[in-house]
């Protein structure tokens, strides 16, 4: 029909077109080039995945639970126990070896260790199961793809949070999310509206590992004259130690007893700073596997990381000072949600934001926070923000059974 090679005087027939058609032609040509690029890149990634998958064998599971890292054991184990009690068939896939140092799994629960990274995801991408439960976000976005033989994908968050600080498309392609609280639920619905996604099932679940933290919470220490401050920051370029050095801890230690709990990742990523922190004199350094005993021993927490702050406030019902670097959410889901953290605003009474310019006033701020502290108020806010506090693992197990019945 159209033969561009038919020319007169060396002129392509396409040259005889008006601006609209010319623009559309450029669009068509760029479309072809972009399509080719995406097709080639997709083919390359599929080939890599096929090589990684190799000759893996797949067994059919009822509920498959995927743990990417040992730190999520505390999220899954209570749910696995409740499912086992209900007689549900569970297979626990971990991207690490579970040796004897891990808590044993209940009888009847199968465990499969799969390789970490791309090879492990290549395996999961072809799994056969009724439901796959994971804390890993971005299903069907990066290398963790939906398997055609998994009927339902369920996301179980591992901390109290909102979808503001997660990477793009974190929850978009899950069939359901077990929400920790109403803020996450509302954020997910908002993102569905913005992206015009079909509504996924959202369950009022809670945070399963709070059940364990609550059950294993050591009794608070007896009151003494000097209050104890726990300093447990994150790691990396924005962490308290990186920004203010160890002088901040030394200043606080002149007024209070201090327990310092450096982030485990700091030992690997910032070894020099880690070494300086663990050698601090006049403070107690806690490097235990869990922060439970340090949290029980402390009266107040200074941190810059959300997970431990909410545990300290909601499980131990004690105040927190948050060194508040305003996080740039431009590349995260918060950009589309707009505004500021709702969670931060609602917890402001007992998780008090401290701007970096105020850190030299920390001893006074600690005194103020402890003076106005109210356990009653924390319990009220917790009731509002956290679903099923202390009973979320059985709730999650029941909800998973509901999903099974609906499939």
């Amino acid at each position: 029909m159209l033969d561009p090679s038919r020319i007169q005087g060396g002129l392509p027939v396409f040259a005889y077109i008006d601006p609209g058609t010319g623009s559309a032609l450029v669009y068509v040509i760029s479309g072809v080039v972009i399509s080719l690029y995406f097709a080639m890149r997709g083919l390359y990634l599929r080939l890599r995945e096929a090589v990684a998958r190799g000759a893996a064998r797949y067994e059919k599971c009822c509920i498959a639970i995927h743990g990417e890292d040992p730190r999520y054991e505390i999220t899954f184990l209570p749910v696995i126990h409740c499912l086992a009690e209900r007689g549900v068939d569970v297979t626990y896939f971990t991207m690490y070896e579970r040796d004897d140092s891990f808590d044993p799994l209940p009888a009847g629960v199968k465990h499969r260790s799969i390789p970490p990274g791309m090879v492990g995801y290549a395996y999961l991408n072809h799994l056969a199961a009724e439901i796959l439960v994971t804390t890993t976000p971005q299903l069907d976005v990066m290398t963790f793809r939906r398997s055609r033989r998994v009927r339902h994908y369920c996301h179980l968050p591992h901390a109290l949070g909102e979808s503001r600080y997660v990477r793009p498309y974190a929850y978009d392609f899950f069939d359901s999310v077990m929400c920790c609280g109403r803020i996450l639920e509302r954020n997910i619905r908002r993102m569905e509206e913005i992206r015009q996604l079909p509504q996924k099932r959202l369950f009022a679940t809670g945070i399963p590992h709070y059940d364990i933290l609550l059950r294993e919470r050591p009794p608070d220490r007896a009151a003494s004259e000097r209050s104890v401050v726990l300093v447990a920051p994150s790691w990396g370029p924005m962490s308290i130690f990186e920004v203010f050095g160890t002088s901040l801890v030394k200043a606080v230690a002149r007024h209070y007893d201090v327990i310092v709990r450096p982030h485990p990742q700091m030992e690997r990523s910032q070894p020099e700073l880690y070494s300086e922190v663990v050698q601090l004199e006049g403070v107690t350094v806690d490097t235990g596997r869990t922060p439970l005993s340090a949290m029980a021993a402390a009266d107040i927490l200074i941190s810059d990381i959300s997970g431990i702050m909410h545990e300290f406030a909601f499980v131990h019902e004690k105040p927190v000072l948050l060194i508040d670097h305003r996080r740039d959410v431009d590349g995260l889901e918060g950009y589309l949600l707009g505004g500021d953290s709702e969670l931060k605003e609602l917890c402001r009474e007992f998780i008090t934001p401290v701007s970096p310019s105020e850190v030299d006033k920390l001893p006074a701020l600690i005194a103020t926070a402890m003076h106005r502290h109210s356990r009653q108020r924390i319990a009220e806010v917790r009731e509002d923000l956290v679903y099923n506090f202390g009973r979320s693992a059985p709730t999650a197990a029941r909800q998973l059974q509901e999903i099974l019945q609906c499939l």
Partner: protein
Amino acid sequence: MPLSLVLETVLLDPVLTIFRHIFSFWQGHAPDLGLALVAFSLTINLLLAPIYGEMERYEASQSERRTKIQREVERIRKHFRGRERYFYIRTIYRHYKYSPAVAMLGSGSLLLQICVFYTAYRYLRDQPQFAGVAFGSIPSLAEPDRLLWGVNLLPMLMTAANIASAFLRSNERRQRIQASALAAMFLVLLYSSPAAMLVYWTTNNFVSLVRSLARRTGRQVWPSAWRAGFARLAELD
């Protein structure tokens, strides 16, 4: 029978027949061959107005969608690199149900328009009667016009109309630059074409310019009598 011949017979020949009738009509009614060409171009444009309109509507909707997609892609490009960036951009396309390949296939009116252009080109190319025929100051419609001290004027008029129309059609800098570059390329390619061909396409581009003007400014700056005419023209879209 080769496929190209089948396609020509099925698609090209019926349109060529229509073109032949229209041009013959104007040859019989216009005072000279040059004006017949102008009238021929205007008639083809009038007949194609609904297709132009459809195409512009489609392009406008696609442009709006592409702008949204582009905005998101730019944000991702700013914050992410490598594999992560690739996967996020792919997800943006997925959210918008956008595929460059499908979008290309979806522009059927574009293919139709190219087909009509090609037919006009074929028809005019095969007309022997332009040799030695003058049109106004143009000595021969079968040769380049050489109206400006040996320099060809019609390709420049065509390019000016082309660029002006492109600027009226879009406020986006990127699209304007792209359209201007294309117009410049056409100027180079068409510069030595026979005047008959350029009379047809310059008329075509001026019609396009008037339509763009009507669309953009008709409601604000033109006299009321003209506005009514523009409204009728816009209705054809």
